[in-house]
């Protein structure tokens, strides 16, 4: 199934410390215990699908064939469902260290209560001799490192949160087969996994826009801007910063300037503000400067505040 659905099915193998290939380093005892404890894992083999559907037994010695019909039904019942989350993973390799950035983006609102982001490292296709079964076995996506569990704080459509970090590449791993997996999971009940994604570390692109500036230092990661110009010094390059902070100052909702190039706050800003409250369809730069009274809500109170400011001005 992993080869059948490479884009939409992601797996990890947690190996029981009691049943690993002779002389291998497959097991992560404390991680196995912690992860298994989340699901009440007892007997193995045990599969846990998106954290909420379990299947125990049925495929001794890693032979999944008899379970295909059951697993495909579970998979089909989950894949393609609506979810508020999208996950992208990128990073770069420097000698024996991998630095990563996991971007979680929301396209619908959902509470962040109990929502966590887990980041795992796995090694795929480890061909190993299993003494217990007297046979060779292609171990898929073996857990190598549970890098971190982070708290997800975003909850609104359009928001993005980035989780960055590093981990070491072991000499014992075949680096071409190493992947990073990131998930969004509810740590309350049920332990629903709302999204997952993975990337082979060789597929990471340290300079997405190919402008010679590495992603981590680029003030406009997705757009080619080798000059890195940033006219308003807000750390967002001009090429991807439609809102010039020197123009869109608080109250200048229509972004107009006088002959000297200074922002003008006048009655026309009131019109723009009231139009927004009616239609909520103006540009994002205007929205940033409409919260005149500072209560994080744009409404009639901001109109009153702005009107009072204008009446009190010269």
């Amino acid at each position, binding site marked *: 199934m992993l080869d059948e659905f490479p884009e939409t099915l992601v797996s990890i*193998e947690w190996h029981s410390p009691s049943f690993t290939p002779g002389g291998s380093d497959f097991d992560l005892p404390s991680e196995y215990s912690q*992860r298994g404890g989340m699901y009440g894992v007892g007997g193995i083999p045990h599969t846990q699908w998106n954290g909420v559907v379990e299947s125990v037994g049925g495929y001794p010695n890693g032979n999944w064939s008899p379970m295909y019909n059951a697993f495909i039904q579970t998979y089909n019942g989950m894949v393609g469902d609506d979810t508020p989350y999208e996950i992208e993973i990128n990073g770069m390799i420097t000698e024996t260290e991998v630095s990563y950035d996991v971007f979680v983006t929301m396209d619908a609102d959902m509470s962040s209560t109990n929502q966590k982001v887990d980041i795992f490292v796995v090694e795929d296709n480890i061909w190993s001799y299993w003494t217990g079964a007297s046979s060779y076995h292609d171990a898929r996506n073996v857990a190598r490192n549970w890098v971190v569990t982070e708290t997800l704080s975003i909850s609104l459509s359009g928001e993005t949160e980035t989780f960055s970090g590093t981990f070491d590449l072991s000499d014992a791993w075949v680096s071409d087969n190493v992947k990073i997996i990131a998930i969004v999971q509810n740590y309350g009940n049920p332990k629903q996994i709302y999204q997952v994604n993975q990337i082979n570390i060789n597929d990471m692109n340290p300079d997405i826009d190919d402008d010679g500036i590495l992603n981590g230092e680029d003030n406009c990661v997705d757009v080619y801007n080798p000059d890195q110009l940033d006219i308003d010094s807000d750390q967002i390059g001009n090429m991807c910063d439609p809102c010039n902070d020197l123009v869109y100052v608080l109250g200048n909702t229509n972004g107009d300037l006088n002959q000297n190039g200074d922002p003008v706050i006048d009655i026309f800003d009131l019109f723009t503000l009231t139009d927004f409250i009616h239609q909520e369809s103006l540009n994002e730069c205007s929205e940033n400067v409409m919260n005149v009274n500072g209560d994080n809500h744009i409404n009639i109170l901001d109109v009153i505040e702005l009107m009072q400011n204008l009446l009190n001005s010269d």
Partner: protein
Amino acid sequence: MKKILLLLAISLPFAQRMDPIDLAIDELRTIVETASRSSQKVFVEDFTGLN
């Protein structure tokens, strides 16, 4: 005079109402937003070991 002009300016825009076009656009926005929702991928965790 300045205050009267300001009050008049404020009252006019608020006197507007949503017309059928606004409602249609809102409906279209809802449809587009729903259609573009992210698709769930599947994560299977295999607790295993040969015996």
